[in-house]
């Protein structure tokens, strides 16, 4: 038996992942890639780089399509995505189940659930929250200052590359909708753990109207992130205004080397979310049950694959009460884990670190096993590792004030119990770098159109353009 130097094992099932280039489906099996999560191989066509860019000499196809028409199109897309007979979605889920860490039912729920973003009122709200005057998307809006100088301003359609994450298929739908609403020319770089959803959504759109400007404005391809041969050619201001990238580490450091005048980064940074549970939670059994249940809900968002999912829970209690909380939290996490049918074992080195803490039992206490069915670790300061795969670290503190020092520039959501104490903490949390503070148990939902990653993204996407139009006589006052 000799299998030396064969990175891609032919024994693996090869799943095919087609591309979508400015309205057209491109099929092919020219390149094999590996999704390391499950060791599955997928095949893609060769990228025709020339077709992935839209010439600057042609205005973006969506520029003069009214926002209202775009939103109507997106709403219809949403209906088709939810339609059980949609062949593109069915096929996509089949393929995805082979390459994704999350179980099929969770994925199905996500793709269908993502379609709820394509709601008329919701989309209008997003636009209205992002732009003081959404008309600027449709036309040149007249401005005049106090000196009488007059101009027209347009939220001009940008050219965007979106580097999509792989841990949340819903982001694909959202990115397509946002790219469409700002009327951008969009190139979506898909992730190896989901090279399917974006194309499935775009095919659904092409099925509605293959010639529509919205469809002509969208391309979705895969290349291995960091592949210089592709990125050095594409990541240029002559082709794109902005790169919208999710994630950190190598994913971002690969991108940053291409930034420069005219080619800007809009980054959705990698984040850790936490919870803060006040002493009110241990005052009664009812409160304890309630808080543990809410905390478990926040831990288990997308089975803890998402950035909003809580990983560290600061509990204001003595050790005995903290342990009571841990016990209930563990019970609720395992319930949810069992319900999801997801029992991936923990990675080896995470297992090793947790098992070590089990041995150091005078300082740490561990509820559950490292079997992927839910685990809680109690400690006096946050553990060194990143709790993932249904793992919660309960950090006991004398006062929630002591927990503030663990909030940093990587902190996204802070779930709070009881919510009445949130105003006392929000300034300090923001100052440390946190971006959202929510009621415990509500890490997932957010007010429609609210800032994400400390910004209004759509406002950042567009190419703000001014047309200066002289001074109105007697206009100054």
């Amino acid at each position, binding site marked *: *038996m*000799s*299998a*030396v*130097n064969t990175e891609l094992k032919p024994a693996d099932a090869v799943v095919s992942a087609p591309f979508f280039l400015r309205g057209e489906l491109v099929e092919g099996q020219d390149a094999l*890639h*590996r*999704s*390391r*999560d499950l*060791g599955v191989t997928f095949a893609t066509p060769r990228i025709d780089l020339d077709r992935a860019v839209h010439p600057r000499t042609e205005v973006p196809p969506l520029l003069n399509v009214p926002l209202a028409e775009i939103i109507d199109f997106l709403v219809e897309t949403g209906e088709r995505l939810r339609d059980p007979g949609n062949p593109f979605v069915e096929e996509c889920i089949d393929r995805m189940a082979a390459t994704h860490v999350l179980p099929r039912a969770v994925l199905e729920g996500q793709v269908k659930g993502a379609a709820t973003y394509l709601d008329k009122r919701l989309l209008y709200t997003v636009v209205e929250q992002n732009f003081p005057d959404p008309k600027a998307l449709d036309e040149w809006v007249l401005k005049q200052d106090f000196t009488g100088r007059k101009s027209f301003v347009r939220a001009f359609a940008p050219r965007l590359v979106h*580097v999509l*994450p*792989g*841990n*949340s298929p819903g*982001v694909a739908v959202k990115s397509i909708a946002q790219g469409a609403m700002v009327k951008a020319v969009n190139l979506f770089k898909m*992730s*190896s*753990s989901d090279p399917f959803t974006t194309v499935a959504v775009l095919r659904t759109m092409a099925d509605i109207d293959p010639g529509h400007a919205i469809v002509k404005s969208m391309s979705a391809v895969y290349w*291995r*992130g*960091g592949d210089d041969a592709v990125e050095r050619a594409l990541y240029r201001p002559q082709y794109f205004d902005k790169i919208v990238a*999710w*994630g*950190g*580490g*190598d*994913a*971002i450091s690969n991108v940053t080397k291409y930034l420069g005048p005219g080619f800007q980064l809009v980054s*959705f*940074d*990698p*984040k*850790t979310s936490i919870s803060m549970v006040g002493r009110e939670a241990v005052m009664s059994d009812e409160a304890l049950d309630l808080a543990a249940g809410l905390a478990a809900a926040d831990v288990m968002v997308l089975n803890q*694959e*998402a*950035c909003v*999912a809580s990983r560290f829970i600061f509990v204001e209690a003595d050790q005995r009460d903290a342990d009571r909380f841990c016990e209930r939290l563990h019970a609720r996490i395992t319930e949810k884990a069992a319900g999801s049918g997801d029992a991936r074992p923990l990675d*080896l*080195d995470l297992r*090793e*670190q947790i*098992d*070590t*803490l*089990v*041995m*150091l039992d005078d300082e740490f206490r561990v509820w559950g*096993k490292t079997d992927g069915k839910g685990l809680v670790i109690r400690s006096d*300061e946050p553990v*060194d590792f*990143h709790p*993932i795969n249904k793992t919660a670290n309960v950090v006991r503190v004398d006062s929630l004030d002591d927990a503030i*020092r663990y909030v*940093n*520039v*990587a902190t996204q959501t802070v779930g709070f119990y009881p919510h009445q104490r949130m105003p006392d903490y929000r300034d300090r949390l923001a100052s*440390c*770098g946190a971006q959202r503070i929510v009621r415990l148990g509500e890490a997932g939902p957010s007010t429609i159109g609210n800032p994400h990653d400390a910004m209004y993204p759509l406002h950042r996407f567009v190419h703000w353009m001014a047309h200066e139009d002289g001074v109105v006589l007697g206009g100054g006052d």
Partner: protein
Amino acid sequence: MSPATEKLTRLIAAEDRFDHSHAELRETQLEALDERFQERKDRIKLLGHRAREAGTTEIRSREDMVPLLFPHTVYKSYPESFLIEERWDRLGKWLGTVSPHPISPVETSNITDIDDWIERLAAKGHYVSCSSGTTGKSAMLLASEQDMEWSRTDTVNVFSWGSGVRPERDRRMMGLAPTAAVPKNLVIGAAQQAAFGDPARERFRLPIPAITVGSLTKMIVLRKKIADGTALPGELAEFDRTSTARQEALDKAMIAGAEALIRYRHEKLYISGLWNALYQVAKIVRDMGYSAKDFHPDNCIYVGGGLKRAQLPPDYQEFVHQTFNIPANRDFQNYSMQELNSGMPKCQKGGRYHVPPWIVPFILDEQGQTLLPHETGEVEGRAAFYDLSLDGRWGGIITGDKISLDFSPCACGCKGASVRNNIVRYADLQGDDKIGCAGTIDAYVRGLS
């Protein structure tokens, strides 16, 4: 020591130790694995835990051993705060979870730093060697006096077998490695010197202060402070200044090393170092106008460690060898790691690394969870080993390396298991590009190495 283990480890100096086939060793190795397991299961806490989880009571097949092999990361599983906050008693307790021998209590109230702590442990017979992790935590590997003794012998045997150099104490030792001053490195250096060095000729050392565990730890502490947001800009600027000064001292030391090599060029040399330093020194020597023709034709070279992410031209090995006139049949290479206590030297003829009888090799799947079927021929996968010679810690380790292990005889004639010369670290393989929105503060800490 128990009979099967004893039978295998007794071969330490046997001339034909690499000539025992897998089939020939299989049963004895299995017995020895069980002996080791039975002796250790109630003494190493973590092993006991693993065995209970897996429901293992004896080792009847190599498969039985797989869940009991420790990932190499186990030796960095201590909570970092123990190190950063200098909680020596806690670190001692952690060591106790991976040690088969009770950690003798040391006085911790007046310990000045980690080097002091390590020294006090060594005085009690616990030798802690720390690896210099490129990022984050360093591994702490515990060894006993018996392990140190084994290293002294094994390192000399491995070098002698692999390079063909006889230990005749007739060379000037030229140490060109800025290595960490940890017990294992010190023992190996001293043993090589005693075996190959001419006692009348002084050993050359790079004129720089030794890299101590304490100095490595300072960097880890600073990294943590940056992540926490408690490091101030002045502190970072100061760190940069220190790093620059250290680099300048190192650059100067390299010149001193090159000058010494030129000075002793007519003598028979034993040159040791890491590839990066050796390459730099060789370049300086060439720039100074010297090359192979100026050096003794019977020089030899001992290279430790891998490239450690250094960027060198593809022909760096030839360049170094040619500069110092190393004969072609003296190309010494050794496959080993801090986690093992024995080496696997490369043969000259077959170009493969040879596994000694007291190391039981396992090829696992990439995840390190399943033993790949392997009775004959060559199989590729994640390397794991059980080093039966180890006394001061559990001998079973799952490495980060992807290797090809062959049970067929090697071109050099040896019938024992051997490893192809194409070892890579899984971490260095082109990973995929999975990105997600969930991430840690590590992504926000820039440039510290």
